């Protein structure tokens, strides 16, 4: 009899899902599946809407990553209005918005969702292992998290008009610049923010190095990595060309114009999941799956163009002799390098007078189809649209970051289950570890399923005959 374990809900994951752990005849873990409760009406809902509305409308996709969808859609719509190059003020305002989003998202994830695991250990009492516990024991850290998140959100508000459902990015440009007063408000706090970025990076790094043996075998596996990189190979979170590398760093493809992403990335559908399984076409669904997000980006780029983050990247790669790092839990360290990079970029932009420029819109010749990609906090985000001669959308296809990390998350859970499951019971320890492994990917199940709001996760253990042996829920 094959058995099945289901875990639901994973706390501190943005969204809701269910994990099923399948056991084989011998009672050993054979596979883990992360399922998402889904609502996929979005691509249809968009049909017929005017193209200029899409960057604002798509923010309804997800209450957690609205800015990433806003910018990816706006980039696609730049193409629809025939604009391949924004004016410098427009591009810099959009970048500032994006780094603000990266900053607040990474800070929130680290302090609110991850720090309890790192500070208290995976087996600590869940009553202590949460953000309130952190606030009680390490009050300065909790305050830091809140202040950093707020800083990023204020940048979003200043550039997009609102923290969610902003309208700042419009096809061909932006609708406002940054006033001197707004700029000075942010400049006043940037040094403090950078100091906190360095401290956060230190926590993530120390944690990883102290537990390296355990983590190397904690839901880790070799994988391909996909990311946008700049033409010169630098990390670029806002814009670039597609690069895919193997687990050892060989290039699978490089400097691909993302307008033709569909020639390089395909999506597989599996009967048990609403979430699709993207893969690199040339390698096929079996071997072509890949990871996206902070770990993939640090692995894929040749360098980072801000000095402190670049030093941190070198430091990060030194433990793998310059080769890609494939440790699941190294996502946290990579994420904190990006947090520092976002902070450095924000400082660089705030000191750029183009942000007060008034040349905000570019024009071009109308096109019928366009793709917009961005490196969202959780990874590469794809938006693809077709627009008819009446200016109405006829086709939309989205691949969200969490969907790209679908297979990797399943493997991470499988790895953890293989190591920590004994018998046919979901222990507290197993539940905790499954949560920790999934959380490393910072999945946004809300995005992945195009559902609204926040939902929680369940674990079930199922045998070969499909009988549920155990079930554990935590919200």
């Amino acid at each position, binding site marked *: 009899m094959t058995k099945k374990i289901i875990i639901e809900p994973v706390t501190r994951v943005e969204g809701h899902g269910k994990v099923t752990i399948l056991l084989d005849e011998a009672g050993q873990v054979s596979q883990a599946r992360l399922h998402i409760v889904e609502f996929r009406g979005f691509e249809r809902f968009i049909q*017929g809407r005017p193209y200029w509305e899409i*960057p604002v409308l798509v923010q309804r996709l997800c209450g957690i990553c609205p800015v990433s969808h806003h910018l990816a859609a706006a980039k696609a719509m730049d193409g629809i209005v025939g604009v391949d190059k924004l004016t410098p003020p427009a591009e810099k305002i959009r970048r500032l918005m994006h780094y603000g989003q990266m900053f607040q998202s990474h800070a929130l994830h680290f302090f609110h969702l991850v720090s309890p695991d790192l500070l208290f250990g995976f087996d600590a009492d869940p009553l202590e292992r949460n953000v309130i516990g952190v606030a009680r024991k390490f009050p300065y850290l909790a305050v830091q998290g809140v202040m950093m998140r707020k800083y990023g959100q204020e940048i979003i508000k200043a550039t*997009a008009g609102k923290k969610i*459902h902003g309208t*700042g990015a419009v*096809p061909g440009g932006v609708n406002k610049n940054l006033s001197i007063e707004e700029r000075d408000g942010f400049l006043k706090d940037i040094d403090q923010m950078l100091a906190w970025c360095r401290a956060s990076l230190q926590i993530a790094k120390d944690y990883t190095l102290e537990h390296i043996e355990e983590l190397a075998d904690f839901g880790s596996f070799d994988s391909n990595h996909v990311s946008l990189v700049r033409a010169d190979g630098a990390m670029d979170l806002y814009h670039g060309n597609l690069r895919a590398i193997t687990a050892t760093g060989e290039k699978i493809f490089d400097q691909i114009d993302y307008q033709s992403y569909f020639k390089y990335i395909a999506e597989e559908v599996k009967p048990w999941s609403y979430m699709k399984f993207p893969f690199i076409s040339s390698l096929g669904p079996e071997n072509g799956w890949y990871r996206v997000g902070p770990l993939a980006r640090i692995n894929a780029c040749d360098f980072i163009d801000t000095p402190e983050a670049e030093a941190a990247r070198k430091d990060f790669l030194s433990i793998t002799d310059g080769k890609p790092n494939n440790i699941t839990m190294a996502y946290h360290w990579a994420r904190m390098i990006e947090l520092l990079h976002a902070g450095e970029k924000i400082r660089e932009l705030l000191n750029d007078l183009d942000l007060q420029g008034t040349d905000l819109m570019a024009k071009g010749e109308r096109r019928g189809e366009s793709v917009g990609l961005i490196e969202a906090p959780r990874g590469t985000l794809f938006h693809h649209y077709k627009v008819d001669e009446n*200016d*109405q959308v006829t086709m939309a296809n989205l691949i969200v970051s969490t969907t790209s990390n679908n297979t990797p998350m399943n493997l991470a859970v499988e790895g953890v289950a293989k190591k920590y499951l004994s018998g046919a019971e979901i222990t507290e320890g197993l539940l905790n570890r499954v949560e920790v492994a999934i959380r490393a990917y910072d999945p946004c199940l809300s995005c992945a399923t195009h559902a609204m709001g926040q939902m929680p996760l369940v674990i079930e253990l199922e045998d070969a005959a499909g009988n549920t042996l155990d079930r554990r829920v935590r919200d």
Partner: protein
Amino acid sequence: MNDTFKITIDGKEIEARQGQTIMDAADAAGIYIPRLCSHPDLKPIGSCRVCTVVVDGRPQAACVKPVMDGMVIENDTPAVLQHRRNIIDMMFVEGNHFCMFCEKSGNCELQALAYRFGITAPQYPFQFPEKEVDGSHPDILLDHNRCIMCARCVRASQELDGKNVFQSIGRGFHRKIGVNGEKELGDTDMAVSDRATEICPVGCIIKKRVGYEVPIGQRIYDKAPIGSDIEEVHP
């Protein structure tokens, strides 16, 4: 002048002139009566009933009801406000009004009224009707999801543009604004410079490709609630 007299709105005596509507007189006195179908450049038709006031115990549409000497009018009473709130509520649920991504947000009179009346979520269930979007005109988009049947466009096309682009067709729940019978907007002689293009109080008739150009914070009702301009007449 012997054609001026006094009327009373909510206990306040104001000057009125023969030939004025209640709304005209109230406007002149700096008293705001909410409205949607009424527009200063169009003949009033009294259809939306948002301007309902109570005159001598009876509900009347202030935009069409002429003033009479000694009239006693209730405008700002709990019962009148509730009545208007119900009407606005119905408009929200009968259409598909997604303010959070609508490009008219911040410039929309319906949304502004909802804010002014403190309506955050309608009390009636949403009906989510199926409505068309007509993108056939090169410069104007017609999104029936947001139509509230105020017929401003019908009148503006006839009275101000000397055309006849829109008509109100059908009855009851199926009533809608039609375009020259059953055609698409692109088949008509409508021009983007027509008054009918910009007179829509909601986001039903919109100029193409300019949505969201005005940033949040600088839109009409970001600055002051609807009706403030009238109330400023007599601060």
